């Protein structure tokens, strides 16, 4: 085909470019229609073999004509030219060719073809690694589609929830009728159509009795919603569907900033009027530009007024293609021959010669244009000079959504097609998809090697035969071995052709050969659409602690912790993080420091059975606590592993406060609620999550007690004691707990009044020579003290015994995890136990492995590394096999990833004041 093939019209034209050349389209053209109208037949290069490819279809099933459209971050690769409506200034580029579409090096030299047959990837990946090494560069260069854009997408993607009584998918004659009937019956109706115009097959085969536009107006007037350019992309459980709606064409600047919308739709009833997809016909070089599906030819003629060829052969096994012959004759084309594989058929239009028992065996072309069709007619061969062959191998009902809904398929022998059957959901299929035209099985007449089945992944009949020969019997294996149906078109035109070949090889019927599963999405979905507003972090929480603004004034280094941000350190005079945190930790050890601990999990448990609930949740005793006293505690999972730790305080006779780690606070809230509601709904108690109700301030150091006494005008509680008080005129809870290893207090105050309390404590602390300290200093202090941390030493694999906490377990049992702890393996001698490490030379690499000598398997790992705060000696906490018995042993810590190594001595994990003399009374 050459030169424009379109009758002029009075309409304005739409300029666009393809591979840098400017062309003109008519309003409503797809890129495919516009290219054909401009005489462009070569549109792309195939994935593996770089074979020239043209336009085969007129719809979303197009496997060949893939382009990249748009510029910069807006570029959309692998877009079907048949599913892309031209807009002014559209920029489209062909793909997978170098240096140019018509002169492609890889295809000219046949670089790819011999190497990349069926199972190539499979054999390469399963073979020795050196095969992959050898082929990688070649594969990456040769096999490919369009390139993903490297810049961020400038457009927004919207997401919306929707509800309707009836969803109709497809606006062909059946869908329009069903939607209008439902709307007239007073139902809330949604009708979705992936095309830019309603009508479906009516756009190709108009029916004067049906006016799609008028029906759409009527549905809308009745309150129904009709969405064009909207694809039902996934059908999930309970009649939940995802719809992808294009608000602008690919690559187009969206008028309102939103490129697409993802609908989360719950429908009362779903009506699938999804129609049929035509089957191609396998013969040699059937992927050549100029080979087009019969109905597509009709679409280009009737919908767009484009004549895709002037001398045409039609090849068919069904009556539908005779309509194409009629349309071509009406348009003035020369239908050279109608090859009907059947022994008889309907009457052909005048002037068209019909050959029965006739099948195409090959086509040839010149300069990417089709030239000749060779056919086997009866027993002999005959050739025809043409520029187009319109093919129809039968029809495939579009049953993707039906199958995603869990529906069954019935085999139609006369149509050689699977037809939608029952579904477990409130869903039915109507229209053409239920009644594909009769189309008998036809044996391919051409050479298998160049008879393509999956055009997008370059899978030929010969590849299927090879897979069979190599022992791949199941359709699922065939698919994986040949990559059939695994391209972006998901085998819409190829699955049935391949399946019949497989059935033929097996000597079974097609349904016996099986069918692969159809999975969402129906057509490719842009990642940005799934992310929606979340792509720009709009969906992520930022939780600000009550004292955020006060910290901000000190310009701290912030650290994300759970959903929160907490100060990591407060550097002064250009200090580094390490310098600042060491200064802060030394201040705590020698004077006093204050720190924000507001994010700790906090739960108030009250009622007569409060202690009973806590003794389920906590693995330590709780009930024996006196009023005004607290203790360290930890919580186990049911398998006996520590999940979190904190403190528990008896505030009053039947009222307790339980704290947990920051990161574990949400998990702990869920856990306590589970225990309370599922296990012991009978307990008389209530649990209130007061994590955000109270801000918490830790005050620690040798001078902490004096500072606090002056502030509250009373003697603070002794270690592990609780007392209410008033500080800066604000009521506070004072808990005497030490995480740092110094005399320390947690002051909890209603969050709205926290500013005043912090300011008062900070002023008093600074007056004594103290300072605020951040998370990093807290980490140095706790490592030196040997306190475990959730997410560090408490890694989901450690029992209380492993962490040296076994002695604190509630001897009576009855807590969550007590049964799990009795498993014999948990008391074995080689568990990973918490130990301390003191360096015998340099710094200890964090995360390093513990070994006795080079080449040995690791016997443990370093969980946290630091230095003695005042002395500077490198120390660490570690989990070590049988560590409790190995104090005094010398080991090597090695971190091959960091290239660091240190000799260490194993010690108890408490480096600082092991007896707790600095805070005990």
């Amino acid at each position, binding site marked *: 085909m050459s030169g424009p093939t379109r009758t002029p019209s009075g309409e304005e034209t739409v300029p666009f470019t393809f591979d840098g050349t400017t062309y003109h389209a008519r309003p409503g053209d797809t890129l495919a229609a516009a290219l054909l109208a401009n005489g462009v037949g070569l549109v792309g290069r195939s994935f593996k073999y770089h074979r020239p490819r043209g336009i085969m279809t007129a719809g979303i099933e197009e496997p060949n004509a893939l382009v990249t459209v748009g510029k910069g971050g807006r570029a959309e690769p692998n877009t079907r030219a048949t599913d892309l409506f031209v807009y002014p200034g559209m920029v489209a580029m062909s793909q997978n060719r170098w240096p140019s579409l018509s002169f492609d090096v890889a295809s000219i030299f046949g670089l790819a073809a011999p190497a990349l047959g069926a199972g190539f990837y499979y054999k390469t990946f399963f073979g020795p690694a050196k095969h992959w090494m050898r082929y990688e560069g070649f594969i990456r260069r040769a096999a490919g589609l369009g390139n993903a854009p490297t810049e961020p997408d400038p457009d927004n993607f919207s997401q919306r929830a929707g509800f309707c009584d009836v969803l109709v998918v497809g606006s062909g004659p059946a869908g329009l009728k069903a939607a209008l009937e439902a709307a007239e019956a007073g139902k809330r109706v949604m009708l979705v159509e992936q095309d830019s115009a309603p009508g479906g097959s009516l756009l190709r085969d108009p029916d004067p009795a049906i006016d799609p536009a008028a029906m759409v107006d009527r549905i809308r007037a009745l309150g129904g919603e009709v969405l064009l350019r909207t694809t039902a992309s996934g059908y999930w459980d*309970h009649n939940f569907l995802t719809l992808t709606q294009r608000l602008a064409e690919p690559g187009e600047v969206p008028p309102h900033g939103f490129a697409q919308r993802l609908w989360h739709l719950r429908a009362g009833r779903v009506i699938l009027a999804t129609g049929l997809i035509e089957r191609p016909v396998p013969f040699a070089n059937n992927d050549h530009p100029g080979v087009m599906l019969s109905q597509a030819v009709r679409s280009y003629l009737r919908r767009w007024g484009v004549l895709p060829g002037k001398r045409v052969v039609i090849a068919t096994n069904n009556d539908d293609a005779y309509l194409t012959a009629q349309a071509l004759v009406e348009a003035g084309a020369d239908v050279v021959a109608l090859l009907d594989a059947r022994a008889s058929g309907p009457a052909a239009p005048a002037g068209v010669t019909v050959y029965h028992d006739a099948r195409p065996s090959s086509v040839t072309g010149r300069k990417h244009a089709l030239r000749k069709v060779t056919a086997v007619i009866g027993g002999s061969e005959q050739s025809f000079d043409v520029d187009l062959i319109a093919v129809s191998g039968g029809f495939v009902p579009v049953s993707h959504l039906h199958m995603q809904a*869990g529906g069954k398929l019935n085999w139609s022998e006369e149509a050689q097609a699977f037809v939608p059957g029952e579904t*477990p959901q409130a869903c039915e299929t109507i229209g053409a998809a239920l009644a594909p035209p009769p189309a008998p099985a036809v044996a391919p007449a051409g050479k298998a090697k160049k008879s393509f089945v999956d055009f997008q992944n370059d899978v030929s009949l010969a590849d299927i035969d090879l897979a069979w020969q190599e022992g791949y019997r199941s359709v699922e294996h065939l698919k994986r071995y040949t990559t059939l149906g695994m391209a972006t078109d998901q085998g819409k035109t190829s699955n049935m052709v391949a399946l019949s070949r497989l059935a033929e090889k097996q000597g079974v019927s097609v349904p016996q050969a099986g069918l692969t599963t159809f999975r969402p999405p129906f057509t490719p979905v842009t990642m940005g659409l799934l992310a929606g507003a979340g792509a720009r972090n709009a969906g992520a929480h930022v939780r600000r602690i009550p004292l955020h603004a006060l910290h901000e004034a000190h310009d701290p280094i912030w650290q994300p912790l759970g959903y929160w941000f907490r100060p990591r350190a407060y550097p002064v005079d250009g200090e580094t993080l390490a310098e600042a945190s060491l200064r802060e930790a030394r201040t705590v050890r020698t004077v006093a420091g204050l720190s924000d601990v507001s994010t700790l999990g906090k739960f108030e448990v009250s009622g007569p059975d409060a202690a009973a609930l806590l003794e389920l949740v906590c693995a330590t005793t709780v009930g024996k606590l006196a009023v005004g006293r607290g203790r360290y505690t930890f919580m186990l999972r049911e398998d006996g592993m520590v999940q979190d730790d904190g403190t528990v305080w008896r505030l009053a006779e039947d009222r307790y406060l339980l704290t947990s780690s920051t990161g574990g606070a949400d998990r702990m809230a*869920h856990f306590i*609620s589970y225990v309370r509601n599922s296990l012991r*709904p*009978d307990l008389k108690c209530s649990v209130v999550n007061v994590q955000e109700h109270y801000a918490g301030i830790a005050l620690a150091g040798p001078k902490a007690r004096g500072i606090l006494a002056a502030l509250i005008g009373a003697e603070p509680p002794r270690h592990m004691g609780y007392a209410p008080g008033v500080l800066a005129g604000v009521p506070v809870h004072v808990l005497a707990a030490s995480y740092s290893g110094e005399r320390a207090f947690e002051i909890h105050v209603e969050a709205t009044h926290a500013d005043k309390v912090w300011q008062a404590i900070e002023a008093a602390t600074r007056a004594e020579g103290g300072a605020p300290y951040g998370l990093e200093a807290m980490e140095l202090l706790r490592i030196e003290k040997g306190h475990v941390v959730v997410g560090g030493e408490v890694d989901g694999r450690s029992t209380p015994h492993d962490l040296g906490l076994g002695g604190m377990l509630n001897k009576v049992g009855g807590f969550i995890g007590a*049964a*799990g702890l009795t498993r014999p393996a948990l008391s074995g001698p080689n568990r990973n136990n918490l130990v301390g490490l003191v360096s015998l030379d340099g710094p200890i690499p964090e995360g390093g492995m513990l070994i006795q000598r080079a080449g040995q398997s690791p016997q443990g790992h370093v969980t946290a590394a630091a230095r003695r705060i005042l002395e500077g000696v490198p120390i660490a906490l570690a989990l070590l096999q049988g560590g409790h018995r190995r104090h005094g042993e010398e080991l090597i810590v090695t971190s091959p990833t960091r290239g660091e190594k240190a000799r260490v001595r194993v010690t108890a994990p408490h480096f600082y004041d092991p007896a707790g003399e600095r805070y005990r009374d």
Partner: protein
Amino acid sequence: MYQITCPHCGPRAQTEFTYERTTDSIVDPAAEPQTAMQALYTRANPMGLDDEIWRHTYGCRAWMVLTRHRVTHEIHAVKAIGPEALP
């Protein structure tokens, strides 16, 4: 995505709920270790109806037991649990 009828809030999308476990995998803290391990690691996993604990975590936060078909995902019954649901 399921549609779950919360006993307190009515029909809501599954995304508002969290799955906890099947009722046969509840570990009774008072149970003998053998029985507890059975519940923890050996589950019935029937190809049919099963009772599951769910929570309307991003709604009213109440707990419930769903009787759900594991093949068709049909939800046959939803029953509130917790102190308020006690007789």
